[in-house]
């Protein structure tokens, strides 16, 4: 056995720190199971994979903010551990800090994704979203079997990764194919075998195993609401509407003359939809637009039921799972139930509940699909 300098035991006969570290990494690698799930949302990119008896989630906020590019700024950002990206002469703060910077300067953040897909109006969208995806997904932990040469990678037999995609939007004239193909192509360049999964369907896989994957998954994301009705794990209908958290922020911002970033920060930190009185101007506007949004999505679900020609006979009342960042404010599920009671769906509804981890359920559902696919190999 050839030993490198680093593999030599330390002078005291005990293994060196570097050897211990190397063994730890190897031990961990052995436990990482094949298959990954990625949630590519307007607000966050999140990757889930299984390591031993734990699911690991890596996430990154999908926003950036341009600051003045000087060596001094760069040094300050490095020292304060603020993430940044430099492209040519431009310096962009990324992640959660982008939102803080935007609020500080009373401006809005820029986003690589808009309404659930790669933003058509953001010129830096593609390189930035690629970098953010790469940072959370990383390289495959399991390389394709064979000689490991590039040809193996090109044959796309790498580790399976399921990535979330929105359903076709009912209320917007854009198609999601470009978005799907760009993300799929990029994941292939990283060495994966990418497969798309509808966001609502992923929620069902993550949350409705005990109900034989029968029920409805709703993902209230940043740019879209995704809906999927599934029967025995098979999607019956799936669609999206291009209104969600961002739409609420924009409407409230216009109503109360604030920036959307500031409204978003308040919405994420302190909004309580169960509160009935003593609401601030922003809270009142948020409450009004939440009502509007919920009513809008329920009316769209009713229309989809009306359009569906052959619905399977579902014996028991279905469960509805609410998920996504826009569903996080306290009292959201109560508000949803209240409006649903009034508007009623054409099928009996059992429970309406929040996903166990509303920000993780899409990535987790995608991981379940990837693990099932990997075990078939």
């Amino acid at each position: 056995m050839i030993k490198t300098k680093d593999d030599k035991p330390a002078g005291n006969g005990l293994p060196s720190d570097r050897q211990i570290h190397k063994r730890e990494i190897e031990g961990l690698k052995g436990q990482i199971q094949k298959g990954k799930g990625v949630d590519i949302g307007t607000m966050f990119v999140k990757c889930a994979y299984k390591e031993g008896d734990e699911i690991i989630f890596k996430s990154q906020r999908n926003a950036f903010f341009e600051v003045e590019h000087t060596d001094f700024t760069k040094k300050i950002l490095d020292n304060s551990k603020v993430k940044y990206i430099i492209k040519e002469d431009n310096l962009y703060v990324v992640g959660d800090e982008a939102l803080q910077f935007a609020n500080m300067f009373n401006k809005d953040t820029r986003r690589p994704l808009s309404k659930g897909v790669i933003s058509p109006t953001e010129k830096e969208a593609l390189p930035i979203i690629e970098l953010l995806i790469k940072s959370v997904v990383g390289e495959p932990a399991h390389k394709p079997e064979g000689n490991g040469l590039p040809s193996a990678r090109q044959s796309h037999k790498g580790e399976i990764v399921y990535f979330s995609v929105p359903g076709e939007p009912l209320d917007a004239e854009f198609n999601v194919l470009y978005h799907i193909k760009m993300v799929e192509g990029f994941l292939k360049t990283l060495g994966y075998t990418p497969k798309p999964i509808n966001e609502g369907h992923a929620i069902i896989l993550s949350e409705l195993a005990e109900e034989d994957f029968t029920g409805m998954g709703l993902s209230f994301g940043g740019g879209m609401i995704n809906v999927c009705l599934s029967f025995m794990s098979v999607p019956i209908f799936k669609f999206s509407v291009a209104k969600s958290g961002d739409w609420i922020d924009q409407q409230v911002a216009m109503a109360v003359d604030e920036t959307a970033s500031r409204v978003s920060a308040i919405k994420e930190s302190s909004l309580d939809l169960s509160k009935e009185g003593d609401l601030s101007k922003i809270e009142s506007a948020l409450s009004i637009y939440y009502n509007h949004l919920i009513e809008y999505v329920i009316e769209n679900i009713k229309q989809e039921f009306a359009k569906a020609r052959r619905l399977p006979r579902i014996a028991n009342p279905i469960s509805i799972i609410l998920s996504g960042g826009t569903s996080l404010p306290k009292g959201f599920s109560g508000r949803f139930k209240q409006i649903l009671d009034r508007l009623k769906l054409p099928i009996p509804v059992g429970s309406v509940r929040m996903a166990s981890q509303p920000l993780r359920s899409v990535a987790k559902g995608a991981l379940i699909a990837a693990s099932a696919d990997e075990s078939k190999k």
Partner: protein
Amino acid sequence: MGLTGTEADIINCVARLRLVTKDQIRRQVGFSLEYIGFLCRDLIRRCYLGFSEGHYFLAKDGIRTLLAEDTPKIDRKLLKEVAEEVARQISGELKRAVKGIKIPVPPSGIRKDAGFETSPEERIKINTDFDFPIEDESLVLESNIDKIGIKIEKEKSDDMDKTVRLFKEMHKKGRKR
């Protein structure tokens, strides 16, 4: 239900330009693209407008209703011009049909008065299962993300293996059926 002022403005704009995109309407009428889209969808639903390949046009039923109702704010002179054009078009089509020329029905859809609507039975299936090579544009970026690290959360996987097994079984059963 009658037309609101903005809806009448949209109808007049479409009548003037005959075939018009949402953006053109927005530039003429004002308001956001989203709001114009919302109003146009409603006008399609109420059979005033038709929509095909990204363009709105006046629907025949809509022209008939508007002329019959004497709707306020609607430019009747312009509407009559459009109605005459439509009538000429129909008569031309009829003449051709009589001469034995077959007018092809677009396979992708059936024509309704409110525009083209795809019939589910005749829907074309387009293969989207193709490889599209992408270049890694992020290679030109400099970043400290790797140095600072990514936010990591963990949760116990508990029943995940059971869920994966159940999902696989259901898929198998589904395929057998």
